């Protein structure tokens, strides 16, 4: 149990020593733990001086939401409550965040879709809340299993979208997310995605800094829009809605605002490069002619396939995209030099990542982009399935 005190220049309300994101992520000594994605998110929130969190249960994020509630009971999180449904939760998150609170929430699959209007609304407010999305199937027949089709629905909401591969990345990324989303020249919402079950329920080794340190608190007075209070209603643009076009300023703001949100997302790139150590991680053989472009668990599966293909004498490399919005086009082009075949393994039926890759590379690189293999509805993708698809492509008719 932490002790509840007033925030000082050196310590937060629960007595944790305040540190920079750089110290937290790169310098603080770490020790090994063995935990699930849900448990590690609690550890990240515990070290983030979070002002507010709103929750609603849905598999597979219920445990994470529950554990953030425990942090509130222990005095680490300022405000915590359960919303009436996901639409309510995401609206309440908007309220907390616009009022100047560092705010985090979690949801999954059908919950994401129920709340959908809010995500586009969030980015318009230029608030910097974080949603940790534990992806789950949304398509009928009903499934609680991992499937990241829902991420496609979020791509054009104007929020940043990052994708963590495993338990360790979920910890580091959810802390880095606050550091980047709260930069005054970025200041847009951030969605940190992981695959449900594959990360939320998977238990593995993870390196964590001690829990007696926490990030410096959020300073809402550095935000591009002033926080709401009794003098300032929820953003001037909500009081004098753009849609009214009631004067030249509101007309001109309306004309440029959506472009500005997307520019802000692009402006996050240098910060994300620093805190994530690059927007794309490349592993495998440098001069390989076959590349996998992946995010999340698909990166893991591609790395497993890379290792097995190496044993068969086939050299490949794996591009793991850590940011989806902004999309790391320059990094991908750089990493694809000399590559002839691109494979995009995905955990959804439509292949949204391969569509993203194709549209980003159109007119820039000429190579065979193979949209697969793909599994959907919560199926697993063994390395064997990837290897088979690669061998059939590069060695037609002869199979694996």
């Amino acid at each position, binding site marked *: 149990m932490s002790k509840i005190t007033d925030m000082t220049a050196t310590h937060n309300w629960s007595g944790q020593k305040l540190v920079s994101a750089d110290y937290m992520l790169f310098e603080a000594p770490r020790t090994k733990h*063995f935990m*699930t994605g*849900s*448990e590690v998110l609690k550890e990240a929130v515990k070290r983030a001086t979070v002002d507010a969190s709103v929750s609603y249960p849905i598999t597979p994020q219920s*445990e994470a939401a*529950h*554990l953030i509630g425990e942090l509130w009971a222990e005095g680490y999180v300022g405000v915590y409550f359960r919303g009436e449904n996901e639409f309510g939760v995401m609206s309440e998150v908007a309220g907390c965040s616009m009022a100047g609170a560092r705010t985090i929430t979690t949801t999954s699959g059908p919950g994401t879709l129920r709340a959908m209007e809010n995500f586009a609304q969030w980015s318009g407010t230029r608030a910097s809340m974080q949603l940790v999305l534990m992806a789950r199937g949304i398509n009928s027949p009903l499934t*609680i*299993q*991992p499937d990241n089709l829902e991420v496609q629905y979020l791509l054009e909401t104007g929020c940043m979208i990052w994708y963590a591969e495993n338990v360790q990345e979920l910890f580091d990324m959810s802390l880095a997310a606050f550091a980047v989303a709260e930069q005054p020249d970025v200041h847009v919402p951030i969605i940190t995605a992981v*695959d449900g*079950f*594959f*990360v939320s*329920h*998977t*238990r*593995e*080794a993870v390196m964590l800094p001690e829990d007696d340190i926490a990030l410096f608190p959020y300073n809402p007075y550095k935000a591009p829009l002033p926080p709401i209070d009794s003098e300032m209603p929820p953003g001037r643009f909500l009081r004098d809605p753009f849609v009214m076009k009631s004067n030249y300023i509101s007309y001109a703001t309306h004309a440029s605002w959506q472009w500005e949100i997307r520019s802000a997302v692009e402006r996050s790139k240098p910060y994300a490069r620093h805190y994530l150590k690059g927007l794309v991680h490349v592993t495998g053989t440098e001069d390989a002619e076959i590349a996998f472009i992946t995010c999340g*668990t698909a990166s*893991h*599966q591609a*790395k*497993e396939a890379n*290792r097995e293909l190496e044993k068969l004498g086939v050299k490949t490399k794996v591009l793991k995209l850590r940011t989806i919005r902004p999309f790391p086009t320059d990094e991908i082009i750089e990493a694809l030099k000399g590559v002839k075949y691109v494979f995009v393994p995905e955990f959804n039926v439509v292949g949204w990542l391969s569509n993203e890759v194709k549209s980003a590379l159109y007119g820039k690189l000429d190579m065979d982009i193979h949209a697969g293999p793909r599994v959907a509805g919560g*199926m*697993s*993708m*063994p*390395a*064997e399935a990837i290897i088979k698809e690669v061998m059939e492509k590069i060695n037609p008719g002869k199979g694996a």
Partner: protein
Amino acid sequence: MAKDSIKIRMPALGGQGAVTAAHIAATAADTEGYFAVSNPFFGAEKRMAPSESYARIGTVPIYDRGEVIYPDIVMIYHPQVITMGKSYTMPFYAGVKENGLIIINSDVDLLTDTDKKILDNLNVKVLTKDFTQFAIDEAGTELATNMAMLGALFGALGTVSKPAIEEGIKDRFLKKYTASGGTATLDSVIEKKFKKKMDLIQKNLDTASAAFDLTAAWAKEVGLEPMLEAPKK
């Protein structure tokens, strides 16, 4: 030949503790110095409904996630997995690799002649044993079946020691873990049954240890080759 990593599939029924067993198996392997990962897969949480969990153990980093579709080891926790198809793969040994191992908790032999032929061709060794009765004999409750299965796994494997298993069991029952409502209820039922938590842990350790000895002897008897490289310490 011993491999650099193995994948274990544990089809069970809801309430049998296969998720807990995979969790402890991975913790024990991690303690022993391996890379290890465990994860569950289930639908709606219901007693007696199919529930699978998986453990992956290796001397190399483990990337593979999700269901184990090509297992080295299959552990069947309940006869209904086979007789009623309560699993995510059929037949229960689908995808099993050559030189693999299957441990079945059953009081009767459930393999058909065809099953036996297929598994024999793959050089897969099969141990059918009533580990539920074994748990009742050792711990006085069928709720320790998962501990018997856990001990059986490591006895056959031979490269994860009893102290590491002990560490895994203690870690699971002495630390505060997030479990679903159903599991938390079962935990409290078990605790009441044993009155004291330490008694529970000791019974669990004893059951796992006895099953370890049993399968270690069996593996020797049937000539089970070492499946997993020793950890790189």
